């Protein structure tokens, strides 16, 4: 994981979860952090704005998403993959 990406993703998730980034660890899930569906779309929006990427997430089919949000660390990896252009990003306008 690139440290700068990790720091920024942790900071985004922490802000939405009303935690300090130091309380987060890579294996934590968004559920554990108490993020509801609105918090989730806020996280996705902040990621898109921060990294200038488009996250392929559809709230109607969260399971079908190609963006792994199973844990905080998985999100960091997924963001890195998006930044390297390794993932289709047409699912979200």
């Amino acid at each position: 994981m690139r440290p700068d990406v990790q720091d920024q993703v942790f900071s985004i998730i922490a802000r939405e979860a009303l935690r300090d980034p130091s309380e987060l660890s890579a294996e934590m899930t968004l559920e554990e952090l108490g993020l509801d569906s609105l918090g989730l779309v806020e996280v996705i929006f902040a990621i898109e704005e921060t990294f200038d990427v488009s996250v392929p997430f559809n709230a109607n089919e969260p399971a079908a998403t190609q963006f792994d949000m199973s844990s905080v660390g998985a999100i960091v990896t997924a963001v890195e993959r998006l930044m390297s252009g390794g993932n289709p990003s047409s699912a979200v306008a």
Partner: protein
Amino acid sequence: MRRVVISGAGTINALAEGVAQTQAAMEAGRCAIGELAFRDVERLSIRIGAQIKGYDASARFTAQELALYDPFTQYALIAGAEAMAQAGLERAPDPARWGCIIGTAGGGHTTANNAYRAVFAEAKNRVHPLTVPKLMGNAAPSHLAIRFGLQGPSFAVATACASSNHAIGLAFQMVRSGMVEGMLAGGSEAMLNFGGLKAWEGLRVMSPDGCRPFSASRNGMVQGEGAGVFVIETLESATARGATPLAEIVGFAMTSDASDVVMPSLDGAAAAITGALADAGVAPEEVGYINAHGTGTAANDRIETAAIRQVFGAAAELVAISATKAMHGHCIGGTGAVELVACLMALRDGVIAPTIGYDTADPDCDLDYVPNVARRAEVGAALSNAFAFGGLNAVLALRRI
């Protein structure tokens, strides 16, 4: 039929936050109209309005709440909290039998304005993900329902400048008929932004220098913003809980001109006033105060005067009439609710708010408009007029209790 009272009132508007503070400002004849301050205001030809100043949303709501609350929702929640507290309620006492109706013309207009700016002007390709639930017109009643546990009928009403009166009138009818036990009702508007004012100035009805209702020098309306929300319930339930009824709502009528979309109609307005009096069982001679629609446009004030004359006959000479929009601006969908605060002051405190900015008599507007200075008077019954673009009229009748 059941007797229906207002047992709690709340407001935030450019005059003040709070009913007591707003009434004090109205009694003093204070004018909250001034220079507008927001992005791109220099591109407007109309640069005055009654804007709520010194308001810090982040001091009142969390970041998570603000992601969902457009200013019009914030104002409704602030007014609703004041009203509920005055009524002695933390939550709806019987959730399934309590609801909420909020009038608004623009809904989350500021949110829409900002989102359009982002995608059209700034060529951004995404807007905040919660833009839709934030801008929808029913956001205010929905968040009031969530906050206070109102699980009965809740919805928004959009009838432009009559939205608040329609909302309050419907709530009154629902409580009176027994359909519900109690309602939060009122209106909220927050359209003072570049896109909103740009649209309004195009209509050529806005004054560049001030709101002077019923005065010969009047040259248009001045827009305001804010909310008024009221707890409306039966007299029985209010007194059983130890709440103090502020006034009784006794009548309501609504009519449609079904003619011109912007030009007011004497017959439509008169029919709404007549209907409210008949519904209330109040004779014109009993009415001590009319809170006029009184926008300060040439057409409204002339036609409203003629409508009052037509319905009241000789009693028109005796009734005190005022247009408080000269103080708090035209709060569009929220205006009837803010103006109901003046009706409560007349009925409860015997103080009639003045029509400020009155400087020159107009032969077409020849009634008693309580010019410039508040007046003491015993008021047993009051009317609140609202005549909207679209030709939709809504008049409320209240009695002292």
